[in-house]
């Protein structure tokens, strides 16, 4: 017994799982029970998710473009919110799938699951055909915001355009951090997933941690819902990185939702119908001097493009180093280096985890340097991307386009169908216009 006690009091060697006490040789016929762990759940539900996505997209496109029914779209939207949002917990979603795709394309060690590919590609293909019907009634994040938008106010066009650029920046950053293996930003800062999972109801201890765990996300979600009462779909319009891709594809879509089912009669009734500023008015011919000013401005902007790209690239390169600190290995290397040089005394969880592996420090430093190098390149590319986005936006705003009718802006129109009932031609089609003969 004294020997046993001495053994206990010995300082624990760092070697992990050392067998200090041998497995006893049992004489009573005791047999070791086998180690039992439950198997992974079958992925049948994931295939059902993909099927549900395809059906919902087909239905949304039919309801928006053919049936032209806002009410039916609303019902489909609520169903999508219930299934993809509350039942499936908002995971996996098309927005988050961007990160799986970026990681798969740039890291050969990552085998992307089939569902992530399907959730990324199918809505893109549908958008190329019919416009953003995914946003209208399939995306659970969009649905939640759409349902709470009870008193939408009009956002000034300049603010709308400016904030709209954030989505492209977010897209670029999400791709950078996912491809370098640092973080899945979109999931980490998804404002609605905490609401889908009703985190406060099931996680009393998560509520206790001020900004740790899921509480920060819950606060974020509640904030978006509150803002969303007065500003329709703020996440969709200004932040959604998947929406940024859909904007580009929707511009070129084969077919698209129209405000009027027939010819526009320029009645101006639909002008204020859209809470997303997505209805464009017909243009009036500008007098000649104004056009000249426009052309000069465009020429100036074209000269400015290389400057914006170069400036963005430099700024991004400068941000590469701070960005790389989001990566676990870089954080660990920094901490270990500080402890090695004596700038910090004592260890923390992160450095303890490294010492436990008993790897040489140089190996960790080399690994962190390699990741830092990837962030230098990635940061530069992100900067160039942001410069490009700003340049294209400025040029786009200064190019003069003629429009004869009230039309939805194909990029920002979410195909929600709110404008249909404002159009008298539509009302005539539905025979709900008072004072009109019902049959010819």
């Amino acid at each position: 017994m004294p020997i046993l006690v001495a053994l206990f009091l010995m300082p624990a060697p760092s070697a992990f799982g050392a067998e200090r006490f041998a497995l006893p040789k049992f004489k009573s016929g005791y047999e070791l029970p086998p180690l039992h762990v439950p198997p992974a759940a079958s992925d049948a539900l994931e295939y059902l998710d993909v099927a549900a996505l395809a059906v919902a997209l087909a239905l949304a496109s039919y309801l928006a473009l053919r049936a032209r029914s806002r009410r039916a779209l609303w019902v489909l939207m609520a169903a999508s919110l219930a299934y993809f949002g509350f039942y499936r917990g908002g995971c996996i979603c098309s927005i988050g799938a961007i990160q799986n795709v970026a990681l798969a394309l740039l890291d050969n060690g990552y085998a992307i699951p089939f569902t992530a590919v399907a959730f990324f590609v199918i809505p893109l293909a549908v958008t190329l055909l019919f416009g953003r019907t995914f946003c209208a009634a399939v995306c659970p994040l969009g649905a939640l915001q759409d349902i709470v938008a009870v008193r939408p106010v009009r956002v000034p066009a300049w603010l709308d355009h400016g904030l709209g650029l954030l989505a492209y920046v977010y897209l670029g950053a999400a791709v950078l951090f996912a491809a370098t293996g640092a973080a899945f930003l979109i999931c980490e800062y998804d404002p609605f997933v905490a609401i889908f999972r009703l985190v406060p109801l099931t996680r009393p201890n998560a509520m206790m941690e001020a900004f740790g765990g899921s509480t920060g996300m819950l606060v974020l979600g509640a904030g978006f819902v509150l803002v969303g009462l007065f500003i329709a779909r703020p996440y969709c319009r200004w932040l959604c990185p998947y929406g940024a891709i859909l904007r580009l594809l929707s511009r070129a879509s084969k077919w698209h939702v129209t405000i009027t089912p027939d010819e526009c009669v320029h009645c101006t009734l639909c002008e204020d119908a859209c809470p997303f500023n997505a209805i464009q008015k017909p243009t009036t011919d500008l007098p000649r001097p104004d056009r000249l000013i426009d052309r000069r401005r465009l020429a100036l902007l074209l000269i400015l493009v290389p400057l914006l790209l170069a400036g963005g690239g430099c700024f991004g390169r400068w941000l590469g180093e701070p960005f790389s600190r989001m990566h676990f290995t870089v954080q660990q290397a920094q901490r270990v280096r500080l402890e090695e040089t004596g700038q910090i005394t004592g260890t923390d969880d992160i450095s303890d985890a490294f010492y436990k592996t008993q790897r040489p420090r140089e190996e960790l430093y080399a690994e962190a340097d390699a990741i830092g190098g990837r962030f230098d390149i990635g940061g530069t590319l992100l900067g160039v991307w942001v410069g490009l986005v700003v340049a294209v936006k400025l040029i786009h705003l200064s190019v003069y386009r003629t429009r004869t009718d009230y039309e939805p802006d194909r990029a920002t129109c979410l195909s929600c169908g709110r404008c249909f009932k404002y159009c008298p031609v539509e009302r005539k089609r539905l025979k709900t216009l008072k004072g009109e003969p019902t049959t010819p």
Partner: protein
Amino acid sequence: MPTDNDANNKITRRNLFRKGGLAAGATVVTGTAAALATKGGSDGLVWQIDPEKCIQCGNCATYCVLDPSAVKCVHALKLCGYCDLCFAYFSPGFEPEASIEVPAVESQLCPTEAIKRRWIEGPHYEYTIDEELCIGCGKCIKGCNNFGNGSLFLQVMHNRCVNCNECSIAEACPSDAFQRVPADHPYLLKGEDHQV
């Protein structure tokens, strides 16, 4: 949509741009899909804890989106010493001689009494985990690693895990012990063959 079709068929600069954009968009989307088809094809990935990296910080119990956490303690009995005085079972201040006076609950390390102890023979006891009660805090594992064989370890239980695209415990893990593993080999078990 008669007007829309007429407008689409007219050859204007705007329609040419749109058609070019459509062709370019279709090429990019199919290209990406094809590239991903060659990269993917996995049955999917699930989250798991590498017991060699885990430092039992306690985050597994509090950061999971589920309550209680999907992470539970697993006991590899073939690595266990079947000790009488188990430092995963008894709290550090516990003195065996005083065990008659100290109530059982106060003498135990596990906050939920999830470790069950059963006498086998001589000085040997079998320790098993009641999964229903375990909250994945890792307190017992720390005790076992420090003074015993390290036969206890944390694992993500796949009958509970909802497999979030980004695991919220993985985000909070201070030792980068969470990793994605193939769904057909979803555990990293100590003392078993299929370590990844």
